[in-house]
């Protein structure tokens, strides 16, 4: 039996084919945008409803997304696209708001020299439009809330764990949560006031702030003082996000007590494994099937870098394997994943240019 939903889907497919072939989709998108820039047939777009100064270098952008937004789970990130002097640029930002809130918030630290964060800080005001990707990421609470939770963060890494804490607060589910956050100074603690409020209102929340300007309290992250502060850390389900040195040390600490399984990490600076020494790409030919061009790969680095060195301009986003904007179909050949070290010769496989390196001649659908 053909179900109603199948018929519906077939109709929608036929409708979108017709619209595309008759160029009606382009017209519709144009007139929707003329009416309201946030409207779109398929793109997730959002209007900035408020910009909040959190600290001297961090702002929260409160967004009202259009109907294409499918919601998020606490801890997930979204791909934010802005147009900087005519050029689209995309970065992943963790969502700091809880799913229960009416609006979606991203909290952005200004990165010196960072194109997108600088643009967001300097140019984006209430009323402006941003393009978003769907929420994604596995840095989320399991279906059943853990009994004992540790949220561990440093600097702007607080954003996804704050979303988790806000989510728990909204669901009245803060039973036994320890929140340890590291920052340079008191004034640099993002969401500092709200954290204090939550700690005051929820007996089950223990808040530990480690700031370098605090004469009495702990400074930074070190294994010994951390183990004293949170003696039962190994028994807690832990969500960790912060600068790479913090993440590395914490990861080793959990490993040393055999508790790696209880540790969830959110990395935004993916640690690339060094290439095997035999593995420079010299002499490898990369054929771009669609444009008909051949590119000689040279030296080390990702396919994306190799292609850019050869003058190609493939679409890309984060450059660290997160956003999938550089995803492309590899029709043949062998690549190695720089993150996982995995070698793959699968034909017709989707790869990410920014974290793949060629190991043999390749044919790419570019």
């Amino acid at each position, binding site marked *: 039996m053909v179900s109603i939903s199948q018929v519906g889907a077939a109709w929608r497919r036929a409708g979108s084919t017709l619209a595309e072939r008759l160029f009606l989709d382009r*017209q519709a998108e144009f007139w929707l945008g*003329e009416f309201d820039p946030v409207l779109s047939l398929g793109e997730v777009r959002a209007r900035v409803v408020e910009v909040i100064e959190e600290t001297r270098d961090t702002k929260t952008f409160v967004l009202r997304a259009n109907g294409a937004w499918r919601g998020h789970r606490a801890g997930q990130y979204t791909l934010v696209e802005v147009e900087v002097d005519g*050029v689209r640029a995309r970065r992943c930002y963790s969502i700091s708001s809880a799913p229960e809130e009416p609006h979606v918030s991203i909290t952005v630290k200004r990165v010196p020299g960072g194109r997108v964060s600088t643009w967001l800080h300097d140019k984006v005001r209430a009323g402006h439009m941003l393009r978003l990707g769907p929420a994604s990421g596995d840095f989320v609470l399991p279906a059943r809330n853990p009994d004992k939770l540790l949220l561990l963060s440093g600097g702007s890494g607080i954003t996804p764990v704050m979303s988790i804490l806000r989510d728990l607060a909204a669901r009245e589910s803060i039973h036994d949560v320890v929140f340890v956050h590291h920052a340079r100074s008191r004034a640099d603690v993002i969401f500092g006031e709200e954290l204090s409020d939550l700690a005051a209102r929820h007996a089950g929340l223990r808040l530990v702030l480690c700031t370098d300007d605090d004469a009495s309290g702990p400074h930074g992250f070190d294994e010994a003082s951390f183990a004293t502060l949170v003696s039962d850390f190994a028994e807690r389900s832990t969500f960790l996000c912060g600068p790479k040195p913090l993440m590395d040390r914490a990861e080793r600490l959990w490993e040393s007590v055999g508790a790696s399984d209880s540790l969830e990490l959110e990395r935004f600076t993916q640690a690339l494994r060094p290439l095997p020494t035999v593995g420079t790409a010299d002499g490898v030919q990369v054929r771009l099937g669609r444009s008909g061009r051949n590119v000689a790969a040279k030296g080390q680095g990702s396919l994306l870098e190799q292609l850019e060195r*050869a*003058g190609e301009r493939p679409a890309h986003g984060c450059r660290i394997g997160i956003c999938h904007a550089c995803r492309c179909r590899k029709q043949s050949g062998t690549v190695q994943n720089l993150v996982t070290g995995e070698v793959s010769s699968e034909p017709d496989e989707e790869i990410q240019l920014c974290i793949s390196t060629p190991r043999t001649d390749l044919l790419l659908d570019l």
Partner: protein
Amino acid sequence: MNTQSKALTRDEADEFGRELDALRQEVIASLGERDVAHIRRVIGTANRSEAAGRLLLHFGVGPLSFVVGTSALALSKILENMEIGHNVMHGQYDWTRDPALDSRRYEWDIVCTGDDWRHSHNYEHHTFTNIMGKDRDIGYAFLRVAPEQEWKPMHLSQPVVAALLALFFQWGVGGHDLRFDELFAGKQTPAELGARARPFLAKAAWQLFKDYAFFPALAVGNAPRVFLGNLLANGTRNLWAFAVIFCGHFPEGVRLYDQAETENESRGQWYVRQLNGSANIEGGRWLHVLTGHLSHQIEHHMFPDIPAARYPEMAPRVREICRRYEQSYNAGSFARQLSSVIGRIARLSLPGTNRPDEATPAVPKEAATANPALTYLAATR
């Protein structure tokens, strides 16, 4: 104007090319918001013009709304094909990373498929510009547009054939990459042609359906009026595109190359060939936009992936460089270039080559080289 360019040594040509490369890099470094704003403004004008044209044709009464509606629709088709489609598909806006301006994805409102165009035009014509036997845009393989081309009896009919091509130009463009001539020459089997033709036939069917069934049907009682309006708008676009494109490569003073002289051509020599194989049309801003800036055919052939709206500001610099290297820069009014092309097509329908002003040897229209060493410099910003 038709003074011959000085023959440059390879070193001179390379020096000439380096100056043009420097200009190219300078403009690429300055690309930004204003270029995106320009193309979006043109897209907006085309969309508004199409909507206005269709509304007037569908709901208007009387001849005035018919004429205005048809003109508005023709204007939108001209802008979409020439300033938007042609230029976007050249990759002029790929640096913006806007999917709506992505050369690989763009499909234009004409029977020629984007993929065929990207092959026959962006690759073949722009690489092998004006090289006889390699650039299939020289007279589209059936017109004799330069005396270097061998005369055949079929050329006797070319004034009529050219007029028909002008009227049905989009079909000429659409069928160009199917290479019918190779079927007759035995270089292509009917099966190969059939496979090659499938995307074109599909696109053509959708185009015919859109303009001659779908929109007329929407207009119900006004169907004949909408049908005729669409036909005239398509025809107007055809005539305009034909005129602009023929003025770009076929007026007097444009030269052809033979394959031997372009072997091992350097990047500088490629620039020289682009210059000598192209001709500009002089005019105001609106003329340039309506031609998709193909009125700056010389700059377009030198810098095919730089946003075309930049050509007018580059042209004086290009001209100055050409003057110093004693290269002729073929530019003239629309009337002059078009009458030159028409006269040439008529004259060359008869045998014989050595007209007085055509005395310079081998001056074909459209020559580009296919030297793999000619990869453009990385335009990463």
